[in-house]
């Protein structure tokens, strides 16, 4: 296209060129001709996993992300069950899922208060200096802030106790876990679980009170700028209820109809990845439909993962309070699937409630203190796939090994990668809607940023941008490539 006269670069200086930026091209009317979302990072994990001992994969791959290390650790562990052809024991499965529920609860609530939440709780156009955890504390009160800090600490202590370390845990082994739950520990965890459920319901209430009761926010959530009609993917139990640890991968089309349901072992028949020369991230798409560019609709192979996608792809939640909220969610927004990206925040608190309730169920399960925590592999290892729902969406690990259990191949489809195409579209669409006639200000830029922050700021396990207030630098170039305006916030 000709006539693109100005270029705006939104560069999170937190990451400099490291982790993600938005480049916006304006046409000569000052409207957006296209916004590009670039992820300029690649670390080559798939390469350097080759040659490693397979049993080390859970610890090596957790280093993909220090914010959600437990997700990679668990996906790799599940792939090792498959690779070593060993069925984990009853107790091991329950300990894994309990630990994982604790992780989801902790990680999702971190997001609500520290990361994406400030946009809504403090307000999308509030001064930048207030749009962070401190602003959230002002809004909800210091008592609440303490509650959040101590809840996080209690939950992370459980992961540390069972997993050795909370950042880069070590519990996962093919066929089981390295450490069991004593009765004494179970009693302590049960108390945390009781408080966890209370805390989760409180989180949901915070969101409802501050966000859903505010008509302006709700209008923003349902506005066209933040809407894409794509397919949705998520891991489901046998009742098609959301499950983070186990199940079948289910895909629904933009009308909500189930189009695919498969075991992770069949993922290569269903998913392929497209690449573009202007970003390091790859764009997964549904093979059945093919890659047709950055477009939505029923013919597009682009799909979405993460909380909203999971709720859309499911028939319900497996725990009582989460199920009630699930019904309210779709009733309030009036359709299923819900195509509004910003509804991810609400979907996330419903999952917080589910994770807390599931944690409570499992910690009170008599099997949880069993001593059968390991099944030792006896078969020759060859190939294995594993899937979990990371907080940020479906996470697939795939390994091949020789008979000694030395890895000969690896393929990883990380959560935010599945969202990368939809995220690219979201940023483009939000930019088109927010910038008209060359008018650019702080609030507008935040609205564009919100488009991808709704998917999650630790996006793609590639950017790991933690803050609610991501510092940005914006440069507007004229046709000669000279800066005519510079903004920062």
């Amino acid at each position, binding site marked *: *296209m000709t006539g693109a006269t100005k*270029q705006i670069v939104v560069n999170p*200086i*937190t990451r*400099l*060129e*490291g982790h993600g930026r938005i480049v916006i*091209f304006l046409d000569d009317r000052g409207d957006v001709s*296209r916004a590009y979302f*670039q992820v*300029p990072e*690649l670390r080559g994990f*798939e*390469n*350097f996993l080759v*040659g*490693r*001992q397979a049993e*080390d994969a859970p*610890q*090596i791959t957790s*280093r993909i*992300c*220090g*914010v959600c290390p437990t997700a990679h650790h668990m996906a790799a562990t599940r792939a*090792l069950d498959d690779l070593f052809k060993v069925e984990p024991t009853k107790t091991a499965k329950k300990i894994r899922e309990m630990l994982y529920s604790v992780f989801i609860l902790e990680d999702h609530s971190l997001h609500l208060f520290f990361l994406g939440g400030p946009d809504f709780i403090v307000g999308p156009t509030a001064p*930048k*200096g207030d749009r962070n955890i401190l602003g959230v504390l002002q809004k909800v009160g210091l008592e609440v802030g303490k509650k959040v800090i101590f809840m*996080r*600490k209690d939950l*992370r202590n459980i992961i*540390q106790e069972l997993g*050795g*370390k909370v950042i*880069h845990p070590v519990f996962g082994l*093919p*066929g089981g876990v*390295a*450490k069991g739950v004593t009765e004494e520990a179970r009693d302590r965890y049960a108390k945390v679980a009781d408080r966890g459920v209370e805390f989760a319901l409180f989180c949901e209430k915070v969101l409802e009170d501050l966000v859903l009761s505010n008509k302006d926010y709700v209008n923003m959530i349902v506005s066209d700028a933040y809407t894409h009609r794509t397919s949705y993917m998520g891991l489901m139990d046998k009742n098609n209820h959301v499950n983070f640890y186990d199940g079948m991968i289910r895909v629904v089309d933009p009308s909500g109809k189930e189009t695919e349901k498969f075991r992770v072992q069949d993922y*290569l028949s269903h*998913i*392929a990845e497209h*690449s*573009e*020369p*202007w*970003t*390091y991230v790859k764009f997964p798409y549904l093979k059945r439909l093919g890659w047709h560019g950055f477009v939505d609709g029923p013919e597009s192979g682009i799909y979405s993962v993460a909380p909203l996608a999971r709720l859309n792809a499911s028939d319900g939640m497996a725990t009582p309070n989460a199920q009630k909220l699930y019904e309210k969610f779709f009733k309030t927004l009036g359709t299923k699937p819900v195509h509004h990206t910003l509804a991810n925040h609400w979907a996330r608190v419903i999952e917080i409630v589910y994770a807390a309730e599931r944690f409570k169920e499992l910690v009170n399960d008599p099997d949880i203190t069993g001593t059968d925590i390991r099944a030792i*592999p006896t078969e020759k290892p060859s190939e294995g796939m594993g899937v979990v729902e990371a907080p940020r969406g479906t996470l697939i690990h*795939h390994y091949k090994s020789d008979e*000694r*259990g*030395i890895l000969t191949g690896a*393929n990883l489809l990380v959560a935010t990668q599945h969202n990368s195409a939809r995220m690219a579209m979201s940023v483009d669409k939000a930019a088109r809607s927010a910038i008209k006639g060359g008018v650019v200000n702080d609030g507008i830029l935040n609205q564009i940023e919100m488009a991808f922050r709704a998917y999650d700021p630790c996006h793609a396990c590639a950017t*790991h*941008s*933690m*803050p609610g*207030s991501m510092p940005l*630098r914006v440069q507007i170039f004229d046709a000669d490539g000279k800066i005519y305006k510079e903004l920062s916030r």
Partner: protein
Amino acid sequence: MAKKPKVAFYWCASCGGCEEAVVDLAEAVLDVVAAVDIVFWPVALDFKVEDVEAMKDGSITVSFINGAVRLSEQEEMAKLLRKKSQVVIAFGSCSHMGGIPGLANLWDKDSIFDYYYHKGPTVQGQNGSEPLMKVEVPEGVLELPSFWDTVKSLDQVIKVDYYLPGCPPTPKLLANAVQALLSGKLPPPGSVLAGTRALCHECNLNESKPEKLLLKELKRVHEVQVDPKKCLLAQGVLCLGPVTRGGCEALCIGGNMPCTGCFGPTDEVKDYGAKGVAFLSSIVDFNEEKDIAKVLEKVPDPVGLFYRYSLPTSFMRRTLEVKRE
């Protein structure tokens, strides 16, 4: 009132775990915030590179830098912070020794791109594009940072005064380091701010460690369910505690898994992996080559085992020129 010391945090190529470790100070983070002025912390606070550039040289009391260095801008930022800081602390295994991303030094850019964009199972046969440093799109020109062939530790690009080891460092060690800085009781430059002895000395299982460690058989972690009350080495599991610096309080061993060496070597050792290999050869209780080979079948990936966190700082690191496009 005396001026508070100025502190900066920065991250290079990292997973974000070191930042989480700072957040894991939990309520103690408030004490730190009360005692110092944080002048730069991109992950949490809105200060710009320009703000750092405008500071007087040496005006930052201490900069904590985590992550390995693999992009030119990371190197530039490290150099800028070096100029503005009295003290630079390499924070975490990646910055200290290259870390797990440093295992990528077994490959180079071309082989990584080839697999990731052309040969992997979800891309093969598609004839897809790979990232270009500069590409014309219909609306204009887009640029990407170049991807180095080689991952570096922080002290390979700037002078480092102290090291806080670990993947990640524990909040306790961080708090101790801040305390030491505030009180001015700093150890000699170049020190690693953790334990000075091997991990075994602080391990709960040390009492069950045999006086003289000699093994006729090794076991890989997935092959054995360990007795949580007994030294892992005594059970044939290759725990690297004896060659690894202490300070982490044996967290992994508390999870019934062996130490994998993220704290790096003790003071007198320069090459962690070489020390690890020497240790291994000292505990294998055989003299015949074929017997030894049999035991070593359980160590099929010595690079991944002994250099898991330190390949970029190994004596055996390659001497390839770093391409800067």
